[in-house]
């Protein structure tokens, strides 16, 4: 693999200043100039709302916007762009999806109408981000479906327990592809296989995986998958919800307004075709065009190559961190199965204090529960310090992290 790190770093304006060690990509990635330019161009040259209007700016905006939708479809190997719903991010995707699955009645019969049993449970994992988990908890409350958790086993999932939890009574299985805390890349194919054997719908949160793990919805064989643009070099405020066409066609919209209708009369409205039916209101057009450019950037380098490169840095980080007395790494240690996230705890200091000392050395990490409190409870810690890596990071960033942590140890011990 040829990975010209200097060339890559030069693409990111924020890395211009020396001595900045950005280790918070799991919160949001940096933006390459190409993406900034694409967004800038939209606002400077052809800003217009999309669809219907006939002036050339609107036509260009629509073309670029729809081109970005097609790129998103290709990025995850979706069958067609019709399956791509543009949202404001993973959180909105998750909320829309859960609502529409509930309101369309498909949870009752599961994903497969030929398997007709009394569906009584939702299965998820202890690893979920709050944006996936809380909508499921609310759904469970409203529908009286029981919410069950696949537990952790080391830093991965316990597939033997998953096998027991996923039964003919399961309506929905929601699983995170890569953890934003431990970095663990889960075997979603295996979970999907268990779920489909009993006719349950499979939903995947790919937010921490996007840009780190090649996404192939057909290979994963799942029913719905979502992610945010801002974790994969695109601007904030834009995200994707993919739903497999046969399921999508059965779903009722849960949000109403302009753009999602084909006609409105006094006594009711007819819905637009998929996917517009699920896209009420004006979306983040510039953001979506930026997402298209971000996908170009990722694909130029190659997601596979990014994973290989980032794995090496993550592996180096884990070894270095574990050589510091009092530091425990809470992350998937097999770097090939880690999406570039290394969380840790220090017996000498609280994550907030660690992050404060690190910040003085321009080492940007994140303390806290990273919107995954159930996962932290399973790991038996309240909070962790998280270092997360992307294609622009280097071993020097890790060295700076380690040197700064040694300073923290000297202060607090």
């Amino acid at each position, binding site marked *: 693999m040829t990975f010209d790190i200097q060339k890559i770093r030069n693409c990111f304006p924020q890395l211009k200043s020396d001595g900045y060690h950005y280790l918070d990509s799991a919160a949001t990635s940096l933006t390459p100039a190409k993406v900034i330019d694409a967004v800038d161009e939209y606002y400077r040259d052809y800003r217009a709302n999309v669809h219907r209007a006939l002036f050339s700016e609107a036509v260009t905006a629509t073309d670029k916007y729809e081109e970005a939708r097609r790129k998103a479809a290709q990025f995850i190997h979706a069958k067609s762009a019709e399956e791509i719903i543009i949202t404001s991010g993973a959180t909105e995707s998750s909320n829309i999806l859960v609502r529409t699955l509930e309101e369309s009645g498909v949870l009752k019969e599961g994903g497969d109408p030929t398997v007709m049993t009394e569906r009584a449970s939702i299965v998820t994992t202890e690893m979920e981000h709050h944006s996936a988990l809380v909508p499921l908890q609310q759904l469970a409350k409203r529908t009286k479906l029981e919410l069950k958790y696949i537990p952790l086993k080391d830093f991965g999932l316990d597939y033997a327990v998953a096998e027991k939890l996923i039964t003919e009574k399961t309506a929905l299985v929601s699983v995170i592809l890569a953890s934003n805390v431990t970095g663990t890349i889960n075997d979603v194919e295996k979970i999907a296989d268990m779920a489909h054997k009993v006719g349950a719908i499979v939903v995947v949160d790919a937010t921490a995986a996007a840009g780190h793990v090649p996404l192939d919805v057909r290979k994963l064989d799942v029913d719905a998958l979502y992610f945010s643009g801002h974790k994969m070099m695109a601007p904030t405020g834009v995200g994707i919800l993919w739903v497999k066409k046969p399921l999508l066609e059965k779903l009722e919209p849960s949000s109403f307004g302009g753009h999602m209708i084909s006609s409105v009369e006094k006594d009711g409205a007819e819905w637009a075709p998929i996917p517009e039916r699920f896209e009420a209101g004006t979306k983040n057009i510039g953001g979506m065009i930026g997402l298209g450019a971000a996908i170009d950037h990722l694909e130029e380098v190659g997601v596979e190559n990014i994973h290989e490169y980032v794995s090496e840095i993550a592996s180096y980080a884990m070894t270095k961190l574990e050589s510091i007395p009092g530091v425990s790494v809470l992350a998937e240690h097999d770097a090939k199965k880690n999406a570039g996230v290394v969380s840790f705890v220090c017996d000498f200091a609280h*994550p*907030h204090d660690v992050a404060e000392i690190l910040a003085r050395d321009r080492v940007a990490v994140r303390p806290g529960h990273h919107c995954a409190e159930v996962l932290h409870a399973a790991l038996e810690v*309240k*909070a962790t310090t998280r270092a997360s890596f992307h294609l622009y990071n280097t071993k020097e960033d890790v060295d700076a992290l380690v040197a700064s942590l040694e300073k923290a140890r000297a*202060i607090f011990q």
Partner: protein
Amino acid sequence: MDPLYQEHILEHYRHPHNRGRLEDFDVKHKGVNVSCGDDLTLYLKWGLPAEGSAQERGTVLKDIAFEGFGCAISQSGASMLSDKVKGMTKEAIRVFEPADMYALYGTTISPAREKCALLALHTLKEALGK
């Protein structure tokens, strides 16, 4: 010396005063720093002071203890504040302000750490109403 983690702050963090729980308490109240999930539980025992006229006496904080999980700033703050308010009247505690809390730290608290620094005080103020 570190600008934030000064010796007296670290001392309170390493060897906190009034840490633990009270067996005999009037109020138990838990406060949470929603930004990081840290929590702090206060135990308060109210009583009458030994001296002074009945009107002046009011209710005083006879004893206080805290437990919880948090950073050096929130934990040392709970330790320093508990020392400070022990023996104070309810009225005096009511008018104890964030500025007074910062004075206990004796150093500049950045906006990012305000919630940590004020966790104990906010929890105490909430507990006053109980």
